[in-house]
């Protein structure tokens, strides 16, 4: 039997997460991912971890992701030269999903941008963070600074029980007038104090569930994680279930569903182009992207639900009759859906909901239907 391991890189080349010891003590199976040794699953397994997150609360270590602080006069306007969001209009303590774009409008990364009140706090993907930092620093004007918070861990607590667990931690809002952590709305942010440590918290995540992402000093991460895991509602969740959860939620994964060869409109991410930016342009690739918005893209990212139980994986070809019309970029079995699901880029003429297509898996054609995403309903605290 041969497994498609992500890489055969030896363990010694890998960086260790601040919670490495805890992951191993919890029985996490460590695999190479984004240059780190990361837990792909714990003894409960991907299926159980996925379902637990949808029913209770899952704790994810996403410390491999890049946490960056952009500071200085005009930081928001400058970031608008790299990404199509309205950051000048981003209110304090609000977060926005955005895209770092190449000059031709291709997607270099997807990221979260939070106005902390005094700085812009960015969270970028782990596998792309060093490239992102180079990209930004090489364009950074004097007067702005970009700081890589490599001494910080990032944890995500996701699932319907997350709010109750966070409410019981005794978190103290750092500034007057700030809501208690359970009163935060989806895509808002705040600083809270826990046992003398400052935590940067956003009500966000990438599972389709309500939940929080918590940035904290690496030295405090283990005590904080253990406090969460002491709650009977909380279990540790690995990368395997993180992937199946985001797939069911219809959320694209950078490096798979998003690449430099894909622009935001065909990716179904036009919502990340803020209204003012659609009018004003001024972001990389604006001409191409605004044209795609106006005329419609030639291909579209769609959700596919397969008949039967056999999954189709990344790279599988999608057919309409004998004609190839697309390719799968993410695929697997959706534990909550109870069926195989996939994301694919498909020619616009074959991208309408309800279209019947076939996917080639090792020479066999599997019947699939274009369906709206998310595959599994989202459950955010709006």
């Amino acid at each position, binding site marked *: *039997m*041969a*497994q*498609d391991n992500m890489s055969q890189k030896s363990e010694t080349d890998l960086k260790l997460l601040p919670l490495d010891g805890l992951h191993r003590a919890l029985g996490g199976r460590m695999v190479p991912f984004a240059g780190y040794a990361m837990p*792909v*699953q714990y003894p409960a*397994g*991907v*299926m*159980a971890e*996925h379902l637990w997150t949808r029913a209770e609360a899952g704790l994810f270590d996403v410390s491999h992701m890049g946490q960056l602080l952009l500071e200085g006069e005009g930081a928001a306007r400058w970031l608008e030269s790299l990404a199509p969001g309205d950051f000048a209009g981003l209110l304090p303590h609000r977060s926005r999903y955005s895209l770092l774009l190449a000059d031709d409008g291709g997607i270099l990364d997807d990221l979260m941008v939070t106005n902390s009140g005094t700085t812009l706090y960015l969270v970028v993907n782990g596998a792309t963070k060093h490239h992102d930092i180079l990209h930004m620093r090489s364009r950074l004007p004097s007067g702005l600074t970009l700081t890589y918070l490599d001494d910080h861990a990032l944890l995500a607590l996701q699932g319907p029980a997350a709010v109750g667990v966070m409410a019981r931690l005794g978190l103290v809002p750092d500034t007057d007038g700030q809501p208690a952590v359970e009163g935060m709305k989806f895509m808002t942010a705040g600083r809270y104090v826990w046992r003398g440590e400052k935590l940067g918290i956003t009500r966000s995540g990438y599972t389709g569930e309500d939940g929080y992402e918590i940035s904290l000093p690496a030295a405090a991460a283990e005590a904080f994680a253990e406090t969460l895991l002491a709650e009977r509602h909380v279990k540790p969740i690995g990368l*395997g279930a993180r*992937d*199946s959860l985001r797939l069911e939620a219809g959320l694209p994964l950078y490096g798979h569903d998003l690449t430099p060869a894909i622009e935001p409109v065909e990716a179904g991410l036009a919502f990340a182009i803020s209204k003012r930016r659609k009018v004003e342009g001024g972001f990389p690739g604006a001409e191409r992207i605004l044209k795609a918005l106006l005329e419609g893209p030639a291909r579209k990212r769609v959700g596919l639900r397969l008949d039967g*139980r*056999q*999954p189709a*994986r990344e790279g599988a070809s999608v057919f309409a009759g004998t004609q190839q019309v697309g390719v799968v970029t993410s695929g*697997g*079995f959706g*534990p909550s859906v109870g069926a*195989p699901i996939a994301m694919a880029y498909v020619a616009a003429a074959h991208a309408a909901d309800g279209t019947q297509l076939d996917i080639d898996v*090792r020479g066999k054609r599997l019947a699939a239907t274009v369906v709206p995403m998310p595959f599994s309903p989202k459950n955010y605290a709006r």
Partner: protein
Amino acid sequence: MRYFTKDHEWIDVAGSVATVGITDYAQAQLGDVVFVEVPDVGRMVEAGKEAAVVESVKAASEVYAPVSGSVTESNAALTDDPGLVNSAPESDGWFFRLSLSDPGELTGLMDEAAYQAFVATL
């Protein structure tokens, strides 16, 4: 007599017919199995070459034929209950049966004690 491969397949031989599956170690590595593609009856499989595919939530993995032969039966129970590979990998979760083309190929395989010693090194 049961033999094992370094790729974590087992093969149970009775005369010129053998049953093939994956080991408990292999199923634990894979995690929750959601689909198994078994070879059609009559197909000739070759030692060390792909004979079946097992799909977990996260990945597809090839299963190799431990020895060469002609497939005589595949496990229909796996169609409805692929989880048998997790719950009973070395009994009810078998994949396929074959008629051996060269019993001499068995000499290259491990017995149970040798396989357990091999797994202990992983």
